[in-house]
């Protein structure tokens, strides 16, 4: 029942995107998200759509697989769209019962759903093509300068990678304990809210105990291998930019320039042509 969540999952396949340096992917994702909110007009979004399509194509991850993981988000998305549709003040278009749909509302709703949709797909492309370990490695290296400001960058990255690593383990554990209690005729579904919350005790107590046990084991294993934090720690495979990474940066730059130009110039150009 918990296996169906594909958001944030790694999809194992070989592709150019998979082989890129995680820093490139992280940076690009951040730039892409910013660009979605900066770009204006049809031109900008056409550029974003084109860029996204190109990346998805290159990533070798089936588009169907990405969409499947988004189903849970669609609900959230539709709520924001509905709110924007009805609650934006402006020129009224038509009335539905007591609610007024405005032109501004429609514009905002469309814009928002495009922005959020692209944002989610864009960031899921990153997680689908990058293992959690690579991701935290990339983050650590990117944030390294903050070390000078006494920010414990390595420790934060380590915590992140451990937390990410534990998600599937704890999910599996939850599934197992749930089944074990179901086998003892536990009832997780019926009853009112208080009864339901109470029925979670037989699930949560063993889950916490096992999480602590695992954390303890992991700490012990790390200490047994002389782990003492980031100082003087070297990497077996240090991240190094290669030719394809520079090319990727170049493409991203092209995309940003194209987006700005299309977004700003297209309406002007169209205006002059029409005039």
């Amino acid at each position, binding site marked *: 029942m918990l*296996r169906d969540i594909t958001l944030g999952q790694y999809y194992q396949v070989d592709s150019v995107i998979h082989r890129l340096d995680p820093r490139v992917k992280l940076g690009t994702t951040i730039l892409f998200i910013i660009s979605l909110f900066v770009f204006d007009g049809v031109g900008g979004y056409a550029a974003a759509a084109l860029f996204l399509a190109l990346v998805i194509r290159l990533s070798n991850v089936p588009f169907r697989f990405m969409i499947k993981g988004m189903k849970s988000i669609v609900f959230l998305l539709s709520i924001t769209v509905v709110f924007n549709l009805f609650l934006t003040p402006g020129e009224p278009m038509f009335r539905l019962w007591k609610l007024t749909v405005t032109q501004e509302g429609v514009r905002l709703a469309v814009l928002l759903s495009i922005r959020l949709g692209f944002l989610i797909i864009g960031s899921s492309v990153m997680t689908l093509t990058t293992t959690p370990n690579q991701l935290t490695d990339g983050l650590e290296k990117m944030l390294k300068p903050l070390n000078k400001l006494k920010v414990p960058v390595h420790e934060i990255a380590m915590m992140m990678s451990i937390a990410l690593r534990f998600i599937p383990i704890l999910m599996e554990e939850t599934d*197992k*304990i749930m*089944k*074990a*209690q*179901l*086998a*003892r*005729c*536990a*009832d997780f579904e019926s009853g009112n809210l208080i009864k339901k919350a109470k029925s979670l*005790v*037989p699930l949560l*107590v*063993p889950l916490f*105990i*096992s999480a602590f046990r695992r954390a303890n084991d992991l700490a012990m294993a790390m200490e047994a291998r002389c782990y003492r934090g980031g100082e003087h720690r070297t990497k077996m495979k240090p991240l190094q930019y290669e030719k394809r990474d520079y090319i990727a940066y170049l493409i991203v730059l092209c995309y940003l320039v194209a987006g700005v130009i299309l977004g700003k110039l297209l309406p002007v150009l169209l205006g002059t042509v029409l005039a």
Partner: protein
Amino acid sequence: MPIILDKVSHIYGEDTAMAVRALDNISLVIPDGQFIGLIGHTGSGKSTLVQHLNGLMKSTSGSIYFNGEDIDSEGFDKKELRSKVGLVFQYPEHQLFETDVFSDVCFGPKNLGLTKKEAELRAYAALKLVGLEDDYFYQSPFDLSGGQKRRVAIAGVLAMKPEVLILDEPTAGLDPKGRDEILDQIAKLKRETGITVLLVSHSMDDVAKYVDRIIVMNKGRVMYDEEPREVFRQYQALEAVGLAAPQVTYIMKELRDHGYDVSDEVTTIEEAKREILAYFRER
């Protein structure tokens, strides 16, 4: 009450690229009162199979009948089924949650809607059945040793008075002494209560001594379903799928190859002892 499986298949992640056929067309009859060993290598589908027997998992195709009723039919009481077919998972001590041993064992019977008194009586009887001393009853389950915790967890299922008891690798992670104690206790329980017991394991040595029927699974299919002696005769085929006959069977084969006239169809140490003594007496 017998359990009948009719062409049961289970596919994990159907309709995805990662689909795995965990059970492939399994047909079995589990009659009352048998002591059955279910054996297979890791990933052979044995855990998947036992979770079908009490309705925790639903088969992709095929049907399962408990006492003549299809367990997937509408209106079938799954809760009732789970109380009748008790399933003890691997590392069952990980499911303990109460503040003391006794309340934890009461959890199952209480879920059945029994009165407090009835639940406590059953819990007491179950704890006695697994051979736990009274001193431990009001201790925190987390203070007990591994073997004791496991007994408490098994008692937690027994307290529901199941008619079929399924144990998934009950000896995993125990030392040899703890292993023998648990297995002996299960055998004793079987003798005293006469319930059906299905013992899941990957070790032939564990089951050879106790069971009167062995089901060998490989890659989601039933490979053998016979008496232990018959199964172990195929030890070469067993080795090919990552299993083995009991160690004592190999010793007897060696002895035979070295010219001692002993039977090599021996599956337990007790039998081997008798066989060897008989051989020396004859000489």
